[in-house]
């Protein structure tokens, strides 16, 4: 899957680009440390991020404060880049008492309504129609901005994806569908396997971005390893969404396992080892060096700074207290029914 890397001069300041790079490094380092916390038993479950960082940072740069973002469960860096307080993000990941969801949902399943961010849902593509409904509400209320929703490549096999694409086309919704195509839905490759990889059938044969055409709107494929490219294309799509929806297929490679319960050695050989040419961290270092924004020394300084910062963050949140058990019956309904009132007496 050859993707041409096109970098025009970014219309954002060098300062902003550097900050975005720092966030990319932060995502990479936090990912490793949170995975480690998971192995040590501080996190019962964790969803690795490696390979997706440039997409996340690009999305975070592209979203405007008039937009609404309905993410899926692998979008950590986008939240960081958007400037959501780290305390809110980390409290959620570690299910702490300070989590606004009170530990109700799995790590990365955030819900930040006050920042115009949807409630991440586990069933794959289960949020796409919600995102469409939110886009309809924007259109109905004639409010500015658009809805960006993200999902993995496996999601494009679900009925939800096709129904949401169809509704988006029919009602001309101000909406951007962004597929983070990392090549695998757990063990099943998105597109036909290379000879000898595994006996799995593929998710699909027709290119994902071309599926938009059947629903009456444009689909594009972009390089998902350059955050400036993701930023540029996603921003353009958001700006144009008042004319109707767009599907973006952002190409990358899932460098880690699907989740902490997965062992990729069973079904693939690692095509993008960490530190190799296609690793988004390396790709973006090269781009930013060519732009004169980064130097080797600056890379080292940022590494040292972020290493220290992320260690302190993980240490703080993995040791923070969990929600009070008395809260578990709260907020099923606005008003407790009689049986919930009774069950409160059962929590000991």
């Amino acid at each position, binding site marked *: 899957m050859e993707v041409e890397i096109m970098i025009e001069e970014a219309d954002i300041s060098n300062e902003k680009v550097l900050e975005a790079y720092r966030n990319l490094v932060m995502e990479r380092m936090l990912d490793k440390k949170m995975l480690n916390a998971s192995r040590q038993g501080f996190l019962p479950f964790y969803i690795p991020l490696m390979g997706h960082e440039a997409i996340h940072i690009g999305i975070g740069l592209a979203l405007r404060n008039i937009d609404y973002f309905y993410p899926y469960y692998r979008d950590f860096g986008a939240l960081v880049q958007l400037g959501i307080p780290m305390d809110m993000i980390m409290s959620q990941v570690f299910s702490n008492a300070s989590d606004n969801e009170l530990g109700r*949902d799995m790590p990365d399943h955030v819900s*930040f309504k006050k920042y115009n961010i949807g409630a991440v849902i586990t069933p794959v593509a289960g949020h796409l129609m919600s995102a469409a409904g939110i886009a309809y509400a924007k259109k109905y209320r004639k409010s500015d901005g658009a809805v960006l929703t993200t999902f993995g490549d496996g999601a494009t096999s679900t009925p939800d994806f096709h129904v949401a694409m169809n509704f988006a086309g029919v009602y001309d919704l101000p909406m951007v569908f962004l597929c983070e195509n990392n090549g695998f839905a757990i063990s099943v490759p998105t597109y036909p396997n290379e000879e000898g990889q595994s006996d799995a059938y593929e998710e699909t044969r027709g290119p994902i971005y071309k599926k938009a055409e059947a629903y009456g709107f444009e689909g594009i494929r972009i390089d998902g390893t350059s955050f400036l490219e993701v930023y540029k294309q996603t921003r353009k799509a958001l700006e144009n969404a008042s004319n109707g929806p767009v599907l973006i297929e952002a190409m990358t490679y899932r460098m880690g396992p699907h989740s902490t319960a997965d062992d990729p050695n069973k079904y693939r050989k690692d095509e993008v080892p960490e530190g190799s040419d296609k690793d988004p961290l390396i790709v973006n270092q090269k781009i930013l060096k060519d732009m004169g924004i980064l130097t080797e020394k600056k890379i080292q300084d940022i590494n040292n700074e972020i290493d220290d910062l992320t260690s302190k963050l993980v240490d703080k949140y993995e040791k923070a207290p969990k929600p009070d058990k008395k809260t578990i019956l709260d907020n099923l309904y606005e008003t407790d029914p009689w049986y919930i009132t009774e069950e409160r007496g059962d929590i000991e």
Partner: protein
Amino acid sequence: MTTMTMVKALNSALDNAMERDDSIILMGEDVGVDGGVFRVTDGLLAKYGKERVLDTPLAELGIVGFGIGMSMAGLKAIPEIQFQDFIYTAMDQIINQMAKLRYRTNGDYTLPMVLRTPYAGGVHGGPYHSQAGEAYFAHTQGLTVVTPSNPYDAKGLLLSSIELNDPVIFLEPKRLYYATKGDVPDDYYTVDLRKANILKEGDDLTIITYGPTVPLVMDTVNKNNVNADVIDLRTINPFDVDAILNSVKKTSRAVIVTESPRLFGVSAEISATIAERAIDYLAAPILRVSSLDIPVPFALEDYYVPNEQKIMKAINKVLQYR
């Protein structure tokens, strides 16, 4: 006050609500230009426009999911599923998003929406236009499940459901859509949710029912001079436990009548609740009258559903139990 059918009462409720609140949006298959296949939304497109009354593509998961998103964004969605039998492709949306959103986000998002659907039999619809699937929804934590039994309740309960700040599954017994007429105020009014209606008082036994079987139960007890408390639950979940227990403690005998099949159903929950909390008061086993435990048969539907004979057999059995 106008004498109207349940369909007209529901239409009046939607009209009243939409007139007061421009955040209310209707959507579903054929609900706009056609006014709904049962005419519940008749005339609303003409009055409120196609931005508020949306004919949708034929995809139930889309209809429900679209409504969820609108309600997440501050609108109040009232999607219609044309027949409850077709709701199952939307069950993931209902169970995993609609029902859980408030709980799993600890109230960060709330979801005021009413999912309406015609349900149960009475139109010779066979296996796919007759199902009474209330148990699927009642067993899903976070949903409020409501079913009316007459035109007055239909309007008042629908308006209460629209006012609620939580998702409601509103099951409309299609056999009652045009079966009877009743006096219904033209203006806005509500009927309390979570509160049963004691339709008739009597000392010999308690009959608990709701929705499509209520008129059948009332006809049966009136015709046979049964001295019973008849309780119309109105809200299936959360049901009015006090109304049931107070009555059973008085009468010592209980029969539960539902149109849905018996096994693992709502009547089992009510029966268990009575047994757990009032067994010392009981003078006879709690009996259930229901449809047969098979899919709805097309040609022989009359033999499938509860009828006067089946209800009287159960009543006589508990009354004569020694």
